[in-house]
């Protein structure tokens, strides 16, 4: 394994002089280093068990045998990256989408509640921010609670919401979406309050000289100037919305979804399954944030913002 990593490192180092200037080169190299460390860790952590096995069966073994063996375990302590990739390939591309073993199926379960929660939370958050900006009493009484609610470990409530809503007949998508909603509307509220307040005194005065109504000021000044803030908080919100959906899947006893895969994997000691679910979740989160970024760029461009 080490030979492989060193070779990769050397190959990149020759290119490095030109790549050093940008960000892509360093990022790739750090990524490669992470993978190398991962391989090293896999060998180190899985080796004791393999050595035990060799001794027990009285097999002569060399270092090469050991390294090879540590990467082919079915239940390794730390699976090697290629094992995780193979498992992902197996469960994403080789299985039918409708199959319960397909990671696409589980991702879709998680993604649907993430998106539903995100949509509701987004609308709620924006409405709350509009209320807070336009009503002094609401601001004074509600804002401290919105801020202090950030310091509370909200995820702890997740199991209760799931079980209690399950008791009154609400199962599946909606309870998980409620957790996501709850998690993601706070950052949106805070970001939007900031954004709706971002027009300066000059702009507000100009609106007043135009004799603009509250509604016109909102629609033509406050709302457009809050859009960049909205997208920044949407990125944060969709990431924690996904976390909420994953944690929301834990208490239902591992039925479907990425969280369920994590839990089932930890019940049965299937480390490769845990890691592949984890990597899938990470990819999903990255994709969602990236998607919002793309929408942000398009919308801001249409609004005529300078990039």
């Amino acid at each position, binding site marked *: 394994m080490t030979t492989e990593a060193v070779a990769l490192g050397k190959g990149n180092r020759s290119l490095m002089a030109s790549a050093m200037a940008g960000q892509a080169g*360093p990022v790739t190299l750090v990524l490669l280093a992470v993978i190398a460390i991962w391989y090293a860790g896999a060998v180190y952590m899985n080796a004791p068990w393999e050595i035990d096995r060799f001794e027990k069966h009285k097999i002569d073994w060399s270092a090469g045998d050991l390294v090879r063996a540590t990467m082919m375990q079915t239940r390794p302590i730390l699976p090697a990256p290629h094992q995780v990739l193979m498992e992902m390939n197996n469960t994403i591309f080789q299985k039918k989408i409708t199959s319960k073993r397909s990671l696409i199926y589980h991702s879709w379960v998680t993604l649907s509640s993430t998106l539903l929660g995100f949509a509701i939370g987004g609308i709620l958050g924006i409405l709350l921010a509009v209320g807070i900006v336009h009503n002094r009493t609401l601001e004074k009484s509600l804002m401290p609670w919105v801020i202090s609610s950030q*310091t509370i470990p909200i995820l*702890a409530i997740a*199991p*209760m919401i799931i079980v209690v809503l399950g008791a009154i007949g609400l199962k599946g998508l909606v309870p998980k979406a409620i957790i996501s909603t709850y998690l993601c509307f706070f950052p949106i509220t805070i970001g939007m309050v900031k954004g709706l307040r971002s027009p300066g005194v000059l702009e507000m005065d100009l609106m007043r000289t135009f004799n603009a109504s509250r509604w016109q000021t909102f629609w033509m000044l406050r709302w457009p100037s809050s859009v960049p803030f909205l997208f920044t908080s949407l990125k944060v919100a969709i990431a924690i919305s996904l976390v909420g959906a994953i*944690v929301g899947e834990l208490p239902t006893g591992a039925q479907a979804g990425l*969280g369920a895969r994590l839990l089932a994997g930890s019940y049965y000691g299937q480390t490769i399954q*845990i890691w592949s679910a984890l990597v899938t979740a990470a990819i999903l989160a990255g994709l969602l944030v990236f998607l919002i970024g793309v929408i942000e760029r398009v919308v801001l461009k249409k609004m005529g913002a300078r990039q």
Partner: protein
Amino acid sequence: MIGRWDGFGMAALVFSLLALLLPLASGETTLAWADRSTSLIIVLGFAIVGGLVAWRGVRGLISALAILFLVYLATLMTMQLLDNGVAGSSSWGFWSFILALWALTWRGIASVAAYQTLNKNHQRLVAFFVPACFGFWLLFLWEMVCQGFGVPGVLLPPPSAIFIKLIASLDILWADFVQTFMKAVISGFAMGCASGFIIAILVDRVPFLKRGLLPLGNLVSALPIVGVAPIMVMWFGFDWQSKAAVVVIMTFFPMLVNTVTGLSAAGALELELMRSYGAGYWQTLFKLRLPAAMPFVFNALKINSTLALIGAIVAEFFGTPIVGMGFRISTEVGRMNVDMVWAEIFIAALAGSAFYGVMALMERTVTFWHPSYRTKN
């Protein structure tokens, strides 16, 4: 003329008069307001005050506070009414009065919130009083809805029941708190933040690493890191060490990214001044760059204080010894002891806010020079 009348006062008047006409409780025993003479007087008084407010508006802080005090008396009365046969069989009259209460509370809070003064202590008092009133009102409404409609405790226990449970099981809650907070959160938080801080200083020395690590660090903050919990439980066992490991991973990256950003916060002018003094790397680091980075470091500490508690609690959902906040929440939910779950959540909220508060306080003492703490005049 009507347009000048105070809407909330009008609502209070209309709803309290309406309340008097409607039955207080229905079902097995029908109760009317007339059966309870003291309540009758209070509701009548309410109608009068509502009318006065509607007619004259609220002028000054004293009258606003007086209104809120009257509302407080009325809430005590409605609590008593609940104990005397209204619980579970509340009717339109009761809810109509609650609406009247809401209207006057809102008018009172709004008047206090609109109060403007130059006295700093008074400002602080108002800034505390308004949200406190609002919170109290929400708790009251929660209690009313639970008891008035007779919501089963399995679904949503009223705050009073949660409080009773909290007092009764302080020893269990304390043991959970020690296991989760004192052992897992504090040690994980300390290790995660310290390592993030030290690695950040190392990374800062190597521009190459800085360019390579920062984008990745930013990416990691968007990933669902809590997911590593089952792996950590597998590696480090069921006890608090595995939870601390999750906390370390969760707190490491925010600290790393923030500190690296903070280390480049020192201005070019100050840096050149240090150079003109002939200061070396370490002197510049300790005397200028680290102090300048402190606002960013404390930002990370504050973010991490919340993340740490979440990480530890969620990690306990994946397996723990028979003690700990996350363990208690997941098992008591399974046994439908929802009041115990709420008590635990209350403790978690308290611990989270206190932890955050301590960080904010430390920030205030360390970065007292920062513009955001300058007193406004």
